[in-house]
């Protein structure tokens, strides 16, 4: 082994503690890069799987009337696998005016096709022979497995033209010269009877835009079908050039149509996709840059410290005739040895870290995505390779300067301890008031920082980066999610059911039944009477007048009357201390929800809409659908409140919610449309929802709509949680790098000053003074980084606000909480590091320390 290698290894071993610290620095950096790579590949795989489930696992589809022609086309080197399919035809199963899926579509698939299309069998099996069929549960309701089914399959046509199978339901409108509109809709033609045997039940996988529910039979080239056969091809190799070659080959094929599955191929990089690649690559590039910069700061620092501890030896080597290149290679060798160990370990840690994160995040993730794709650990070696490359570049950049410096170390440097010689009186000059205010200890602390300006600066930059990242990202997250959260937090119910019933009697029974569910905590059913009046006729509050004058409001004020069921109304009255005796039959007495929260021109307004004196007002009742005036009447607003009933949060300046019971407005009810709004607090929203659905699905003559706010809120919270896991995870890791850097700098700073500390103690510095000096140093570190960190953070917050307020109205709120938190965190961090590194030195024997030759 050559002498430089020996020397390098020996000095690494000699400085074991420091070697370990440097290795940990490299491991953290590499682990982060590897984590980014793994996360990217896992997410991309997830997206790709999702895409395949939604759209099928194929790359190109060829369609041609002649099957044999197609067969010849497929015989190409770039075709990896080919699977066949053919749409046999459609049969109508629903009324096109009532349903978005009027047809049943029967498609023939070969065996690979069933896999490529991700068709899932719930019961029975896939078709394996001609004439076997699988259908959805809904469509096979009348049959059982093994039954013979005859389907009358046809071709879709519009005005005599064939409608392609994958087109939506076709309607065209012609406007004649006299203005009459004639609508033409597509029809089914050329019906042919097919006999099938039902062999299985599948999950419904039909796409929303296709007007048909899917059923599948087994593909056979001898089948007579209404549509041309299609061959789905998977290409090999997955390169852009393959696609170009393929297009070239199929260029002049007559009668053949070709579909490229671009939404899938773009993820393989086979199609240039501006939006995706720039957005994704941009994001990843930014994150990688942040990691690199932080890592370079850390690794550079480690190497320069380890170098400075070896200055003397390098000087000796130099005096014995080592060349510059030899001295330089000492540093590069050290980096090389460390990398050999730290890079693989870092890569492994990154993968393990993401694997753990994904197992934690997956259940949350699944709760808000609807596909059956799973988010699991996927490692692409290409990306890991790239991460390794970036790590090597990072390390190389970090050791460049230390290596150059090593090559310039001369005999004199090592003998004379250049470090001290470099201090100039100017560079460590401190203002006089420092001594006055902070005493000698404070002054010494400041002079120390000034002496090791570079280290001080790098520590402060590390701290500043952490501060800025933390404050601005948490601000960004909270303002982004705050909006979503606030909306849900203002909701005072868990489940909302809208009922459209046919008779008042049946509605009453159903509502009673719903009210009596065991899951109900709180229940309110209400109906709405749409009404309006005009500002000019109303005693309005000054703020409303102002908004009206400034032209933000129309002439009319919406006055929806919420007619609440008696039980809920009585408890509402109790809540607001209302007088029940006022709400008698046909009294037309109502309570106004007289608090508005609204925004105009990016400004928020909160206040009363109406003057709070009871009054009577003329209103126009309007039809809930057409908006036509149905009746003119008088309403008595007898009381005002700022408490909202369930389902409402506040009024608006253009819309005041009026609340009353059924008795009071019995004569105003429109009984043509029996719409009921039911709001519930639930003991278990999910089971409750299922129960309601089952009950209402079985009922006849009722249409309904259910909104589970609680589960929506849960999903939003989970989404936010998942984002937060990643974002804060990232910040924590980046901060970890900074923390390592700070610990390194402070520890070595203190180590290098051991002798000086001993001198101070030998001339009579007390332990208390010593601690005071160290604390001052910590405070100066903390203060300097806050001094930079806070203004930069505020600036970024302002920028975030600027961009966010384009679309939303956001209250500009300085996140005092995070500022306080960060301040505490920074000071704790610096204090702990300082105390830790000083602890050993404090108990140093003065005489021993003075003898040291650092």
């Amino acid at each position, binding site marked *: 082994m050559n002498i430089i290698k020996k020397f390098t290894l020996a000095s690494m071993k000699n400085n074991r503690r420091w070697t370990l610290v440097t290795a940990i620095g490299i491991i953290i950096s590499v682990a982060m890069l590897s984590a980014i790579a793994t996360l990217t590949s896992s997410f991309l795989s997830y997206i790709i799987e999702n895409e395949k489930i939604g759209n099928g696992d194929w790359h190109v589809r060829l369609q041609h009337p002649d099957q044999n022609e197609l067969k010849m086309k497929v015989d190409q080197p770039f075709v990896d696998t080919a699977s066949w399919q053919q749409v046999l035809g459609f049969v109508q199963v629903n009324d096109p005016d009532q349903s978005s899926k009027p047809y049943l579509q029967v498609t023939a698939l070969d065996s690979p096709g069933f896999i490529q299309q991700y068709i899932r069998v719930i019961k029975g099996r896939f078709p394996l022979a001609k004439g076997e069929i699988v259908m959805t549960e809904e469509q096979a309701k009348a049959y059982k497995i093994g039954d013979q089914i005859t389907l009358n399959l046809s071709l879709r046509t519009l005005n005599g033209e064939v409608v392609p199978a994958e087109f939506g339901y076709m309607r065209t409108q012609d406007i004649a010269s006299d203005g009459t509109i004639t609508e033409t809709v597509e029809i089914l033609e050329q019906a042919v009877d097919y006999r099938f045997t039902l062999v299985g039940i599948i999950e419904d996988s039909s796409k929303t835009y296709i007007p048909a529910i899917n059923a599948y039979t087994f593909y056979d080239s001898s089948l007579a079908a209404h549509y041309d056969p299609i061959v789905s091809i998977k290409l090999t190799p997955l390169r852009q050039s393959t696609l170009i070659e393929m297009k070239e080959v199929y260029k002049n094929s007559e009668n053949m149509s070709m579909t490229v599955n671009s939404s899938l191929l773009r993820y393989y990089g086979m199609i240039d996709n501006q939006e995706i690649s720039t957005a994704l690559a941009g994001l990843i590039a930014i994150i990688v840059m942040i990691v690199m910069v932080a890592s370079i700061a850390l690794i550079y620092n480690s190497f320069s410290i380890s170098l400075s501890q070896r200055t003397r030896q390098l000087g000796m080597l130099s005096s014995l005739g080592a060349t510059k290149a030899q001295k330089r290679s000492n540093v590069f060798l050290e980096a090389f040895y460390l990398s050999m160990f730290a890079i693989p370990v870092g890569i492994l840690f990154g993968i393990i870290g993401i694997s753990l994160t994904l197992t934690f995040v997956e259940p949350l993730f699944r709760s808000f995505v609807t596909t059956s794709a799973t988010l699991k650990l996927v490692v692409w070696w290409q990306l890991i390779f790239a991460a390794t490359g970036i790590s090597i570049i990072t390390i190389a950049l970090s050791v460049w300067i230390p290596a150059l410096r090593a090559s310039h170390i001369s005999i004199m440097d090592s003998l004379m301890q250049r470090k*001290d010689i470099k201090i100039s009186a100017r560079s460590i000059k401190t203002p006089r008031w420092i001594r006055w205010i902070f005493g000698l200890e404070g002054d010494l602390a400041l*002079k120390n920082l000034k002496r090791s300006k570079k280290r001080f600066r790098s520590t402060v930059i590390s701290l500043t980066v952490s501060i800025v990242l933390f404050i601005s990202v948490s601000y960004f997250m909270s303002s982004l999610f705050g909006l979503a959260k606030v909306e849900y937090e203002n909701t005072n119910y868990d489940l909302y059911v809208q009922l459209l019933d046919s008779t008042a009697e049946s509605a009453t029974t159903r509502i009673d039944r719903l009210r009596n569910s065991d899951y109900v905590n709180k229940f309110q059913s209400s109906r709405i009477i749409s009404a309006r009046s005009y500002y000019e006729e109303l005693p309005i509050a000054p703020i409303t007048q102002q908004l009206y004058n400034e032209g933000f409001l129309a002439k009319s004020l919406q006055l929806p009357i919420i007619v609440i069921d008696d039980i809920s109304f009585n408890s509402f009255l109790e809540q607001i201390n209302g007088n029940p005796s006022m709400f008698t039959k046909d009294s037309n007495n109502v309570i106004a929800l007289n608090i508005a929260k609204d925004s105009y021109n990016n400004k928020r307004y909160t206040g009363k809409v109406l003057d709070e004196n009871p009054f009577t007002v003329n209103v126009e009742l309007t039809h809930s659908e057409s908006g036509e005036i149905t009746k003119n009447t008088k309403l008595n607003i007898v009381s005002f409140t700022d408490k909202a009933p369930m389902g409402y949060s506040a009024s608006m300046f253009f819309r005041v919610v009026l609340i009353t019971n059924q008795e009071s407005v019995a004569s105003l009810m429109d009984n043509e449309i029996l719409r009921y709004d039911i709001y519930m607090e639930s003991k278990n929203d999910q089971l409750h929802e299922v129960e309601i659905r089952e009950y209402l699905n079985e009922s006849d003559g009722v249409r309904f709509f259910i909104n589970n706010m609680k589960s929506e809120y849960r999903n939003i919270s989970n989404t936010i949680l998942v984002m937060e896991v990643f974002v804060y995870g990232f910040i924590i890791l980046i901060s970890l790098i900074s923390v390592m850097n700070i610990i390194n700098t402070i520890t070595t700073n203190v180590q290098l000053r051991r*002798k000086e500390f001993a*001198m101070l103690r030998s001339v009579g*510095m007390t332990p208390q*003074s010593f601690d005071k000096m160290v604390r001052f140093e910590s405070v100066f570190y903390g203060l300097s980084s806050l001094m930079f960190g806070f203004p930069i953070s505020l600036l970024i917050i302002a920028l975030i606000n600027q961009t966010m307020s384009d679309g939303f109205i956001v209250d500009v709120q300085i996140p005092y909480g995070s500022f306080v938190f960060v301040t505490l965190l920074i000071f704790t961090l610096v204090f702990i590091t300082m105390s830790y590194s000083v602890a050993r030195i404090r108990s140093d024997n003065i*005489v021993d320390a003075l003898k040291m030759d650092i």
Partner: protein
Amino acid sequence: MEILRVENCSKIYGAKEAQVIALNDVSFSVKQGEFVAIVGPSGSGKSTLLHILGGVDRPTSGKVFVDQTDIYALNESKLAIFRRRHLGLIYQFYNLIPILDVQENIMLPALLDRQRPSQQHFDDLVATLAISNRLLHLPNQLSGGQQQRVSIARALINQPALVLADEPTGNLDRQNSSEIISLFRLLNRKYKQTVLIITHDATIAQNADRIISLEDGKIISDEVRKI
């Protein structure tokens, strides 16, 4: 008047086989205004003794009284305060604080006490030591002899009961050494300053009032001279 009394001081380094007895039951006392030289071969325990007298190292056993105070009965803080007020240490390698200028280095023991020494005493001291024109320089801008004079000034600034110097001229040429030694003599005469000085230099020792010889951690002779 007795300014220093050493009672049965021993210092033992290490344990068992590796044990080194650096000081072996040493006792003596020094009167105010004495100029004492400590001599002995290398490794005889001179520096060890001086550090123990200076309150920077603890004896394994025995007591040290400076100005009637049992210094090792004091706790660490009290000892530090005692050091800066009553003891002045001078090392072979100056041991100045690199980030403080000459003036601040000299005043350091006083500054640590949050006091300003009398300006006249300070001016007198720096004039005597011939460093008045170097007050605003940093230690690394001074020659070895100058640095040593600064460290002497630092040792004297609080008018300590005892000045202890460990081979103060070991790093200096003959010219510089004799200047420094004359300084010590001068200070001794002018301020009645008690001085203990370790030296290998026979001429320096000849200048002292009293020569204590150490060997293997023991005092082998204690010779009071009349000049």
